[in-house]
């Protein structure tokens, strides 16, 4: 594969365009419980792959950011975390904030997932929840009692993506709303300052 990198990348891009052309015009197929479960199965397989890969911390954090960008609805999570301030933000500010938020949250949660080294996550169940789906998984960590991780999955972005993670009742969206809200208060509501500080950490 190494000798063919250029070719395969071209082939990949070409296939991607073809797929986009083929599916782009079609409405997104309605999400069902099996697809929601399949999405989280993939997320969990990829997380398990990263925590078992033996990568360095910096490499792992980069891998987690890629996973987050691929499987989570980052623009929606970022907008929700920003709360009421998102309404007065310009589209340039929202774009900059979303990018900074993606990096911030991948590093923050990536460092937690790093503690999962030697452990694994298993998907147990999936069920409808309002107009979304909830996928229930269990994390098995070395020397810990197993604990529950829930994933909320939706397709309102046009793709099947998760938008919340709930670990033993502790909700990522709720925590980040409080945290980003507090960061914004400290900067007297200045979104540009918030973005600059998120990028600096």
């Amino acid at each position, binding site marked *: 594969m190494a000798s063919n990198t250029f070719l395969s990348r071209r082939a990949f891009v070409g296939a991607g365009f073809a797929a986009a052309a083929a599916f782009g015009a079609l409405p997104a197929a309605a999400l069902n419980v099996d697809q929601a479960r399949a999405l989280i199965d993939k997320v969990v397989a990829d997380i398990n792959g990263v925590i078992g890969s033996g990568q360095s911390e910096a490499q792992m954090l980069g891998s987690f950011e890629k996973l987050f960008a691929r499987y989570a*609805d980052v623009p*929606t*999570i970022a*907008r*929700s975390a920003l709360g009421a301030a*998102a*309404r007065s933000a310009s589209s340039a500010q929202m774009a900059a904030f979303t990018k900074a938020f993606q990096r911030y949250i991948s590093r*923050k949660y990536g*460092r*937690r997932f790093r*503690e999962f080294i030697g452990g694994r996550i298993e998907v147990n169940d999936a*069920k409808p*929840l*309002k107009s*979304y789906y*909830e996928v229930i998984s269990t994390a098995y960590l070395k*020397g810990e*009692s197993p604990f*529950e991780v*829930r994933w*909320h999955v*939706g397709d*309102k972005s046009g793709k099947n993506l998760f*938008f*919340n993670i*709930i670990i*033993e*009742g*502790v*909700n990522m*969206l*709720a*925590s980040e709303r*409080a*945290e980003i809200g*507090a*960061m914004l*208060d*400290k900067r007297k509501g200045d979104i540009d300052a918030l973005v600059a500080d998120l990028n600096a950490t």
Partner: protein
Amino acid sequence: MTVKIPLIRVLPLVVAGALLAGCAAAPASQGVNDPLEPMNRAVHGVNKGLDRAVVRPASKAYAAVVPEPLRQGVSNVADVLELPGDIANGLLQGRIDRAATNTLRLAANLTLGLGGLLDFASAAGMPEYKTDFGETLAVWGVGEGPYVELPLAGPSTARDAVGTVVDLAMNPLNGLFEGDDRTAAMGVAVLSRLNDRARYSGTIDSILYESADSYVQARLLYLQNRRFALGGGDAAGDEGGDAFIDPYEDSNGQ
């Protein structure tokens, strides 16, 4: 004509009553009820200072000096010492099965677990049901009350603060240990807490020292996790629960 009702016939009624009390339990709490915030924030500042100056360095030293298997053994003994309280609260909650499992755990770990050093029961597949009088009050239908941050003990609610005091005062072991034994039991409990502080240092440090408002993060984390634990682990699945946030609904309102 006198009617004699044998105890054996009444007992199921008592148990059923306890179970009904469980069904009629306190309405699920939502949101944040924190009228004492200024005082709580002051206590939070003190607790954070204590953690920075004493608890965190002590936990690091403990983890550095004492090898992991020995620390685990001490924590296992601490868990065994908590079991009598867990059993008593399980009975008060009408959760006979959990109290019975905890009793088996106690017997197994005291004997095959060499006096509690080894957690034989968990290895044998007996789950541990940790509980406290705060949960008993919740099962009895007492509401959560306002959020409070306690000195040393940290995040709590009015209901859980009462529970903590009752658990300390009514611990079945109080009468059993005296003098040096009692000091040793307390030492084991403190070391077990230090071990937890060391083990979860990444998470705890990120909340206390890396978040923009550690008071708000600690409060949110405690309330969400406690409600989850008291809801039997299914709170997140309830449609009316706090856990479900629809971020698409917000953006539609723009």
